[in-house]
């Protein structure tokens, strides 16, 4: 369901933290309905890249635009409205520790919509079922394993039926079976709805299922770009080494 309309655009983005340069002239774009997978070595700035798109970080130079809004200069009200149409899965789930699982997932609905309590409860149950966490509404986050926290975070990211979704390592901490079901969930969502998403992952299995397009970020910029098949069958030494394939 990909269209030609560019939804997210990074133009020559540089980002430094003190003297440490993380992104160097990074440029990439994501079209409406497209699922872009970002791969790259640990600590290379993949999450930093994602954070720019939701306005949690501002580039040192360059520009990040989402639906035409420059994320560095966007008005606060516009940013709030834009974020209401976004979902974000954090690496560790980022659940509010003193709220139950159900309250965590219901939070954006209670705060930002006029849904009734029964509608909210139904929506929460539906999203929990989607991530195979049925009946866990009353558990507290400290009672959950890392994988469960991740899945609750995923349910929260999807509960508002967002149009743009960011997945920061959606498979980390999940067993292979659940991991694959999360991959298929991401794929199903992008096939059924015009969801635009960016996925950060290290797993080839995830790339193969979810990616419309893949980029490899290395040394702060896009090193390689292509479809999942092109990546997997590439003979590029750097790519081969990163994907841990034996050299041909």
């Amino acid at each position, binding site marked *: 369901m990909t269209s030609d309309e560019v939804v997210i655009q990074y133009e020559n983005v540089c980002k430094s933290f003190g003297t440490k340069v993380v992104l160097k002239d990074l440029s990439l774009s994501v079209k409406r309905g497209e699922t872009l997978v970002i791969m790259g070595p640990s600590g290379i700035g993949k999450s930093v890249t994602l*954070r720019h798109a*939701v306005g*949690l970080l501002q580039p040192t130079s360059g520009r990040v635009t989402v639906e035409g809004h420059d994320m560095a200069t966007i008005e606060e009200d516009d940013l*709030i*409205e834009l*974020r*209401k149409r*976004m979902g*974000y899965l*954090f*690496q*560790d789930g*980022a*659940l*509010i*520790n003193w709220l139950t699982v159900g309250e965590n997932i219901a*939070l*954006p609905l209670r*705060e*930002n919509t006029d849904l009734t309590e029964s509608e909210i409860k139904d929506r929460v149950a539906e999203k929990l079922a989607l991530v195979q966490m049925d009946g866990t509404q009353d558990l507290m986050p400290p009672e959950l394993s890392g994988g469960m926290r991740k899945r609750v975070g995923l349910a*929260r990211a999807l509960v508002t039926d967002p149009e743009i979704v960011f997945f920061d390592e959606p498979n980390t901490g999940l067993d292979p079976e659940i991991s694959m079901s999360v991959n298929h969930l991401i794929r199903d969502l992008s096939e059924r709805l015009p969801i635009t998403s960016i996925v950060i992952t290290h797993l080839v299995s995830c790339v193969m299922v979810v990616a419309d397009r893949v980029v490899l970020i290395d040394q702060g910029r896009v090193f390689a770009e292509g479809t999942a098949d092109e990546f997997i069958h590439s003979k590029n030494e750097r790519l081969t080494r990163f994907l841990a394939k034996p050299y041909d």
Partner: protein
Amino acid sequence: MKDLLRPLYSAGYRVDLFLRVILRLHHVAKRRMFLLDQLYVGGIKVLHVVLLVGVSIGMVVSLQTGIELSRIGQQNSIGTLVALSMTREMGPFITAIVLAAATGSSLAAELGTMSVSEELDALEVLSIDRTSFLVVPRVVALAILCPVLTILCDAVGIVGGGFVARSQLGVELSLYYDTVLEALQTPAELIPLPKDVYCGLLKSFVFGIVISIISCAAGILARGGALAVGAATRSAVRDSIILVIILNYFMTWFFYRQ
């Protein structure tokens, strides 16, 4: 240079946070459950500390001043001194110190942990106003708690002072309480409370706001990991106590200047 600018940034952030809380005070009704939770956590759980410290301070004031007064045969005025000391200074100040150490540190650690574990970022991405969601209930809770605990601290301090006056200095309890009531007769101009009680409670109200704003700001600004949470907690308690002491002087000067 960055280290020099950090305190300025931190001070500016606290002022900004205070103004944002003022603009969102009408959200209190929506956050009433969180407010009740904060009243319990910040108040009931430190009540015994405030009472213990309050009664001890009242006893010390009574003993120290009583010994000196008895040398000039004025030990019968001890109730006056204990009542004025507790309501004007000791009650509000001691309560603020206990709240800064117990509740303020807990606020900073709680919000600091939320900050380093990306929970604050999650709220921001979910378009949830974190000032309204996290800070308003905590500030309102401490603004209510500090005066309430101060009244209790004043009361137990005066009772403790009376116990020492009777047991150590031989002052009759009826005389002690008569002098206490007499000392607290000065009426306030606007509020039907003795001026000394009213001024002490107003100080407490300000201290409660100061402690909560400083502690919440320290937690929200925490960056890094466990070390940052520790640093935020330390700076919250340190800065709260310093500001409470400085403000205490200026408010005392304002209310009692000649």
